């Protein structure tokens, strides 16, 4: 029987302590709060992830996501992508601080964007001038000069004001451009002939005057044309070679942009959601309650101070038990000042008794204490006696009207998207 009761109690405690909570990211973006004291997992649709007005899925094929908050001590846990939805563990949130939520989205640039980047690069006057200069300088030169000039060209397009940098900045807002540019340059360097010959390959292709292909088509349009289902491969072997070589080199150049890229949804971005958790942190609680002293059969009022021996305790605004058992136990001392059961002849002389014991908080407001009362016997002996008691009580310092007196701080403001959560005003409200 004892074992069954223990099992039921353990299960009950397990349910209370787990207190994990799933929060929709879209709700946070509308100003929702993150609950303190629970293991929070954020969920949402991929379409919820936006950079300004633009959906991230327009830029990336999302492959990974992590959620964290600014200043988080541990590493953020990896989230999961399932179809068009995602979830990411955020863990427990700190008390009394503004939480600046950070989402790091990993993915690969979508084909349409890759095509637009390659098109824009090769249509850029800046790039054309650099390419012409390359061929002028490297013509009839040895491999060292050609390689050196090719490296110079790549450096020119990827420097701060380079053609590639400018295009990436325009096409991939919110993406960490430096990473993309660096990876792209590495990819292009590995396929230098394809990169440097792509314009010439397009020229050879256009010379075929393929029916249906606009003579002014961009690289991307030409590629889509020759890979389309309606495209009829020419009979002529030379024409076939032109098609195949263009396709090969275009794909090699496009592949330079296929590495993983990151989008950090953070400050200044629409989805950067700030959330403030409301809380109360304290070293001691002041309780009032009724205690039963069975040996003398009295029900008495108690006032007790509960001291938290392991440091300050943060109360859960949701009213549930904190996960850490240490935060629930307290050492209590106080006094009983009178009988409340209508007893006409109390055993306690002058109605005053010293009380001591241990308290266990049930939730934010309520506690049960057990211990002893020390009192002077009003009977014939008049000796100092000690009797056990049990007392449910309410933590007065957790009541809203009193918490400012006892607590270190409290706050309860929800920031809006794009606001600055760390302002003194927010903390002091």
């Amino acid at each position, binding site marked *: 029987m004892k074992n069954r009761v223990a099992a039921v109690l353990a299960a009950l405690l397990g349910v209370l302590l787990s207190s994990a909570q799933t929060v929709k990211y879209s709700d946070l973006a509308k100003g929702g709060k993150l609950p303190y004291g629970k293991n929070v997992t954020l969920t949402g649709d991929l379409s919820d992830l936006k950079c300004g007005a633009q959906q991230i899925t327009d830029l990336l094929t999302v492959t990974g996501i992590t959620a964290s908050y600014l200043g988080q001590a541990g590493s953020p846990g990896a989230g999961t992508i399932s179809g068009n939805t995602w979830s990411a563990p955020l863990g427990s949130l700190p008390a009394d601080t503004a939480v600046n939520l950070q989402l790091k989205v990993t993915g690969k640039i979508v084909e349409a964007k890759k095509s637009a980047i390659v098109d824009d690069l090769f249509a850029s006057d800046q790039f054309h001038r650099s390419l012409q200069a390359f*061929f002028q300088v*490297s*013509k*009839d*030169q*040895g*491999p*060292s000069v*050609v*390689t050196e000039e*090719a490296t110079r060209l790549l450096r020119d397009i990827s420097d701060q004001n380079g053609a590639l940098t400018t295009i990436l900045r325009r096409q991939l807002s919110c993406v960490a451009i430096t990473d993309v540019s660096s990876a792209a340059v590495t990819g292009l360097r590995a396929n*230098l*002939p394809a990169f*440097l*010959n792509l314009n*010439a390959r397009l*020229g*050879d292709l256009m*010379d075929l005057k393929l029916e249906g292909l606009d003579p002014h088509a961009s690289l991307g349009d030409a590629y889509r044309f020759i890979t389309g289902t309606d495209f009829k491969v020419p009979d*002529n*072997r*030379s024409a076939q*070679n*032109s098609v195949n*070589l263009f396709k090969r080199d275009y794909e090699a150049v496009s592949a330079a942009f296929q590495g993983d890229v990151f989008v950090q949804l953070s400050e200044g971005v629409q989805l950067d959601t700030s959330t403030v958790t409301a809380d109360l942190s304290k070293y001691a609680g002041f309780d009032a309650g009724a205690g039963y002293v069975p040996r003398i059969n009295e029900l008495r009022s108690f006032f007790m101070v509960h001291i938290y021996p392991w440091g300050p305790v943060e109360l859960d605004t949701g009213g549930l038990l904190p996960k850490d058992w240490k935060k629930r136990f307290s050492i209590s001392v106080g006094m009983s000042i009178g009988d409340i059961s209508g007893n006409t002849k109390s055993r306690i002389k002058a109605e005053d008794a010293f009380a001591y014991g241990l308290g266990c908080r049930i939730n934010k407001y309520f506690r049960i204490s057990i211990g002893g009362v020390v009192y002077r016997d009003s009977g014939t002996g008049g000796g100092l006696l000690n009797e056990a008691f049990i007392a449910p009580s309410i933590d007065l310092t957790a009541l809203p009207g009193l918490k400012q007196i006892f607590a270190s701080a409290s706050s309860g403001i929800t920031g809006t998207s794009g606001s600055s959560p760390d302002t003194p005003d927010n903390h002091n409200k």
Partner: protein
Amino acid sequence: MITKISNVDTVTGSGQINFDVDVDAAGADEDVSTKLNGDPFKTPVKVARGGDGSGQSIAHTKHGLHTVTLLAETSKVSSRDFVLDL
């Protein structure tokens, strides 16, 4: 005569530069040449009237990245500039 030189390409280390030529109604019988790092290389191209000019090649002895432009010596038709990893 040769009217177009296109699809200049190579397989690295093969010692050959591959290309295709288009010819006019008369066909072609002329040399196609290039310079690699100052050294001349050429190949005779003979295509019968109405024949297939694809699959031509120039043998060379060079290695590494080179900018290559092929020139038909009689008709003075040249290819576009290509960078090949020889």
